[in-house]
């Protein structure tokens, strides 16, 4: 934050800049800090000096002005109760307490003021009831959105698995002259033919590493490669790194710079790296190298 407010020394400034120039993760962190500072600015959470300093920078950049405007809209839409923008001087009314303004104690006739006061009180009570109902509905709506998102996600995974299985069945049928119309059972990844030079395995995240829940893969002497198709839950990263590890947590294979096709990541692993045993596959999203998902499988002979 001190960088953005211009309070770093030249040396500190240069050090920070050089680090975000050479390191992608540092740069992303820099952008997040910028975003959080703009959010604090539009919510009025900064001191006047800090806001004034920021405005000098904002005023020079159309991009930053645009970001400020969007941040204001976002804050207003998603957390409307606290949005405070830049203070604009306005004439101050004479100081009157809420009680005085409600019941008109200090001005004019008392009876109409009392009637007005009780009406206002009734309105307040009604408003409070409505607010409580609104909050309850909002919570329910949030829960429903979460459930819907989860269901849609599951549906997408199932669709992908079905499509993968169909493709694998067709491929195997083509190789071994089998009828390609053989229906593939849903949600079951077949153990590939041991004699195929390339065997295919589709994995979904969340399968246990214990062995019992793992999908099995049978490799024969002719098998040269295993093609892993990994169903991704998150495809927002620009590229991915995949590592295959054995049960002793030893890395037996890795590949980076991978890009998903739709929501699937495909990687070919030489069979020589996969002696019988349990394996787990880890997927990391670049450039921050964040852990995205883990998968497990077992190799048998």
């Amino acid at each position, binding site marked *: 934050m001190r*960088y*953005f407010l*211009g309070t770093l020394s030249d040396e500190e400034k*240069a050090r920070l*800049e*050089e680090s*975000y*120039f*050479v390191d*992608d993760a540092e*740069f*992303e962190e*820099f*952008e*997040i800090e*910028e*975003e959080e500072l703009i959010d604090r600015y*539009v919510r009025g959470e900064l001191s006047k000096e800090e806001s004034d300093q920021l*405005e*000098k*920078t*904002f*005023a*020079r*950049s159309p*991009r*930053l*002005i*645009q*970001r400020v*405007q*969007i941040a*204001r*809209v*976002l*804050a*207003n*839409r*998603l*957390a409307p*109760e*606290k949005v405070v*923008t*830049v203070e*604009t001087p306005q004439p101050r009314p004479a100081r009157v307490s809420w009680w005085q303004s409600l019941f008109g104690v200090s001005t004019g006739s008392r009876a109409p003021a009392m009637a007005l006061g009780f009406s206002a009180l009734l309105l307040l009570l009604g408003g409070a009831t409505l607010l409580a109902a609104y909050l309850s509905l909002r919570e329910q709506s*949030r829960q429903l*959105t*979460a459930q*819907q*998102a989860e269901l*849609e*996600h599951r549906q997408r995974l199932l669709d992908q698995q079905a499509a993968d299985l169909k493709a694998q069945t067709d491929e195997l049928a083509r190789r071994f002259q089998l009828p390609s119309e053989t229906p593939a059972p849903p949600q079951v990844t077949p153990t590939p033919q041991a004699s195929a030079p390339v065997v295919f395995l589709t994995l979904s995240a969340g399968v246990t590493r214990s062995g019992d829940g793992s999908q099995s893969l049978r490799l024969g002497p002719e098998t040269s490669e295993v093609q892993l198709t990994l169903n991704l839950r*998150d495809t*927002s990263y*620009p*590229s991915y790194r995949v590592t295959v590890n054995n049960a002793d947590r030893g890395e037996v294979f890795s590949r980076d*710079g991978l*890009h998903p096709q739709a929501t699937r990541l495909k990687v070919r692993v030489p069979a020589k790296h996969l002696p019988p045993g349990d394996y787990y596959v880890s997927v990391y999203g670049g450039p*921050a190298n*964040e852990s995205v998902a883990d998968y497990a499988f077992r190799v048998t002979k």
Partner: protein
Amino acid sequence: MSSANSHTNEVVSDTSARGKTKWVLTQGALEKLLNSFSPKRDEAAEQYEWMRRRLVRFFEWRGVDAADEHADETMNRVARRIDEGQTIDNLKSYFYGVARMVYLEALRDREHAPMALDEAIHDLREVITQEMELDPRVVCLDRCLESLPPQNRYLIVNFYEEEKRAKIELRQELADKFHISINALRIRAHRIRVNLEECITTCLQAPAGAK
């Protein structure tokens, strides 16, 4: 990649503000620049974009006007060195060094033609305090939120929803729900927000009937 190419076209058609012959970025020089980022075309284009973003931020937060133009000028200078056959060991560091040079030159230019900053700040405050109902970004935000995948929409709405303590608790709940750390949640929310902001910018540029 499209941005990298449009940059070439813009610079080729550019004429020098100072009246002397200016080096222009040719397609060949751009190819060499991209190649120095990565021999893979997609990766190179991606890294080009990231570098340009860094340069724009650098000039903006150093308080230089027309940050985009200075970012392009920096790109051109590096492209020129590469085109002339200079070997660069650490390209990203080299970019930073060139950006600092361009910055110092921009400071000198600013002394000769200072910007009316008070007026600009006044305009900024006016824009920021305008009635929210009049802001077309509100309509665009709603539209862009709708176009997000449900999971991303759920994450971004909840990420910004509550305030202070409630916000901290809600973010922890959210991180738990997605099986990620709070920091990973911050990064993910940031990426969704970047997309959302791009969507809003595109929406604002669309004809009124299309919004």
